[in-house]
């Protein structure tokens, strides 16, 4: 925020709107009703002050046409009637339109409603400094500030303004957005997908869709993957199937499956039909298993090595495979017939002698589940043995997938006592 001597005065829009303006022509009293806004700068300039005469006509005045501009003392140098009409400047963006709209506070990743706007006079120019989202701003808008604030402050201490700088807010494309700010800008794109997901959860389906529209497919997929299950299904259901399948392709197959399982069958089938063949077959495989079993949770991307490998060979092999794998916690040692023999962690590999065989360092006391193991049991095993991932084996002992800790973390949290979880999540 601009500070120092540059800053001459600060105002709130609610205090200025309706304020009486004196002019040399005493016969034509007028009031401030609005300001026009020039978007584009960090703190946008308020190019004109809109004044309304007693006859209801709206005129535009510049700041330098005021001889005095302070709250309670506003004075025009010329008669309001000699100023240009508001309708003479088509497409002007009026500041009052920002009142009562929803905005995204990008520093806190939350959706808030604009109660009031703060305006500053900097070097003879009026600029929009920030939005007031606090309780005091609400009282000011309602006209209660003067008599309610002293009363409340007597009981609960000073009532501060809650101002968010204009440079860190982002507009939400709402149904009423005639503000031409609705371009999802850099600020939104710079947010972490997890933060974007929080915002997404707070928005309506329509608003969420337009938020995702401004993101590239990869970010959209990461964002959606972090959102609540209900939000995921509602948003994907409303998307054109091509776009939906592009986004689901970007996700881990197990995450995509979670969403598809919440959709209506027709829609899910349509999205699948648009998906890339290889990805779709992985997803179909996972769809066979019920949602709440190891089969429904597992992902099919895991690193296998063969029993005859040396540690050195295992590293070489791993480098080749790692490109396609999102998460690698363990390497799974398999026999020629695909049967799982043991597990080697990356740490085990790093500290081992490069020439020793992987079978010498692997852990062959296998802890595993089958595709139909209930998810609670999976979570319990992971938590009991402090694992990062758990192999899923078919009846012949062959690897079909792995369940990683992030697949069950929600479940582990859900099983915490409720209040404890709340505290853990909010602190």
């Amino acid at each position: 925020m601009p500070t120092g001597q540059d800053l001459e005065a600060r105002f709130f829009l609610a205090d200025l709107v309706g304020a009486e303006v004196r002019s040399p022509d005493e016969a034509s009293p007028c009031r401030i009703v609005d300001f026009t806004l020039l978007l584009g700068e960090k703190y946008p300039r308020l190019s004109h002050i809109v004044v309304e005469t007693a006859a209801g006509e709206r005129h535009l005045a510049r700041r330098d046409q005021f001889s005095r501009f302070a709250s309670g003392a506003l004075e025009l140098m010329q008669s309001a009637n000699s100023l240009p009409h508001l309708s003479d400047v088509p497409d002007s963006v009026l500041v009052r339109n920002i009142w009562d709209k929803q905005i995204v506070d990008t520093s806190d990743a939350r959706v808030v409603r604009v109660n009031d706007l703060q305006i500053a006079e900097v070097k003879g120019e009026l600029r929009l400094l920030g939005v007031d989202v606090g309780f005091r701003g609400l009282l000011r808008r309602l006209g209660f500030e003067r008599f309610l604030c002293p009363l409340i402050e007597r009981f609960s201490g000073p009532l501060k303004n809650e101002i968010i700088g204009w440079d860190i807010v982002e507009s939400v494309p709402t149904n009423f957005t005639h503000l031409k700010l609705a371009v999802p800008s850099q600020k939104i794109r710079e947010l972490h997908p997890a933060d974007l997901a929080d915002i997404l959860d707070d928005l309506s389906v329509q608003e969420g869709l337009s938020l995702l529209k401004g993101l590239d497919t990869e970010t959209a997929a990461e964002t959606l993957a972090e959102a609540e299950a209900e939000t995921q299904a509602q948003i994907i259901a409303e998307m054109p199937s091509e776009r939906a399948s592009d986004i689901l392709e970007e996700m881990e197959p197990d995450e995509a499956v979670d969403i598809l399982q919440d959709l209506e069958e027709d829609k899910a089938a349509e999205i699948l039909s648009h998906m890339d063949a290889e990805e779709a077959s992985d997803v179909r495989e996972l769809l066979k298993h019920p949602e709440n079993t190891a089969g429904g949770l597992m992902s099919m991307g895991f690193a296998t090595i063969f029993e005859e490998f040396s540690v050195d060979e295992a590293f070489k092999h791993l480098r080749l495979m790692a490109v396609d794998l999102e998460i690698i916690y363990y390497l799974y040692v398999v026999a020629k017939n695909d049967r799982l023999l043991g597990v080697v962690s990356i740490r085990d590999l790093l500290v081992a002698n490069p020439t020793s065989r992987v079978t010498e360092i692997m852990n062959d006391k296998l802890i595993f589940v089958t595709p139909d193991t209930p998810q609670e049991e999976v979570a319990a095993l992971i938590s009991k043995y402090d694992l990062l991932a758990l192999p899923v084996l078919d009846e012949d002992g062959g690897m079909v997938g792995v369940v990683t800790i992030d697949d069950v973390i929600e479940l582990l949290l859900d099983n915490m006592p409720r209040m404890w979880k709340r505290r853990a999540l909010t602190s």
Partner: protein
Amino acid sequence: MPHRLLAFARARRRLLAILALVGPGLITATVDNDSGGIATYSLAGALYGFDLLWTLIPITILLIVTMEMSTRLGAATGQGLADLLRERFGVKVTFWMLLVVLLANYGTIISEFSGIASAIDICGSATGYPEFFAWLKYLIVPLLTCGIWKLITEYDYKKIEKFFLISIFFYFAYPISAYLAKPDWGSAIKALVVPTWRFDAGYFFTMIGVIGTTITPWMQFYLQSTLIEKGITLKDYDNAKWEVGLGCITTDVISFFIIVACAVTLNFTPGAPPVSSIEDIGKALIPLAGSYAGYLFALGLFNASLFGAAILPLSTSFAICEGMGWERGMNKTYDEAPWFYWIFASLLISGAAIVLIPGISFLYLGVMRVSQVAQGLILPPFLYFLVKLGDDRSLLGEYANPPWLSRLSWASVYILTIIDLILLGATIKELIVG
């Protein structure tokens, strides 16, 4: 596939789709017949016989029109009603509108707890131990309040809300009771179609109560937020629309039978006692349940009131926080959404506490009645804003009200305003003339 089979398959699909959406509409409509509803319809029958039956048809039409409008607004914008009010009309309009809604809803919350307390009292006099049950009230009402708090804050109450639909079965008692009381169905139907006017304040008072208990602002808020929570968008709007319409008609068919049953047993029967307490209203079920009428009535009243007592504080607090831009919802913690929990808790707890003030039980029926009249009085300004939103082309595009609907809605707003003014005029006149 033969053509008929195809049509059948399509009809079955549509039916399934509608059932799957059960039911914002049906549930909202069931809450509609809460303790205030039962009291108001019963009194309408007991005091004015069939004379108010004709209002049911215009009321049903208006109910469908307003509920459909909320459904459409929710489906097209994905936003709650308070959100839309705030963005379209600004903070002042929203604040004052929500304030009157809060006051009227608070009255209705007290009336729900009155219903619960009355149900206990009725059991007391039916068993012959009124003192014991009067004391029991002080145990049951606080326990229920805690139960509601726990239910709403700790569990997903949406999962069990359909449980409350069983109260619909209680309402079936009224058609049966009405049938057994052998009313003159011909004149009932005639009274339904041909308006009867009476120019006294009590008639208008009761009429506004009937309107206010059927079409209430809080139901619109509640319906729209439920639809949004379910993620209903324009694609599902057609099905949702039918479900909501079905709910509206169900609720008013029930109202019809309540009025008829009460008219026959409490108004037309010679020597019937004047209705002075909620207990007398239960006598309308005597043709069906005989000496068990009291228990049946108490059970139905209890269930209907309990649902209202749970939902009203919640939806009122939600709407206020939505309009004021405060964090809200049960998935937020107290630290995140203090206003939401404070408003919810104060409405719930003070509503329960008021009905426990010793010696206040004679007011129960009055509260049930007056709160519904209050809902009727705030209806015209509320509808004014609702219809304006529905008319807004920049908001809804092609889903804005078609011209005929817009005209019909505005006509209703004017008529309701006139009826409200007549009541105010008549009340003032009676106060002055004495």
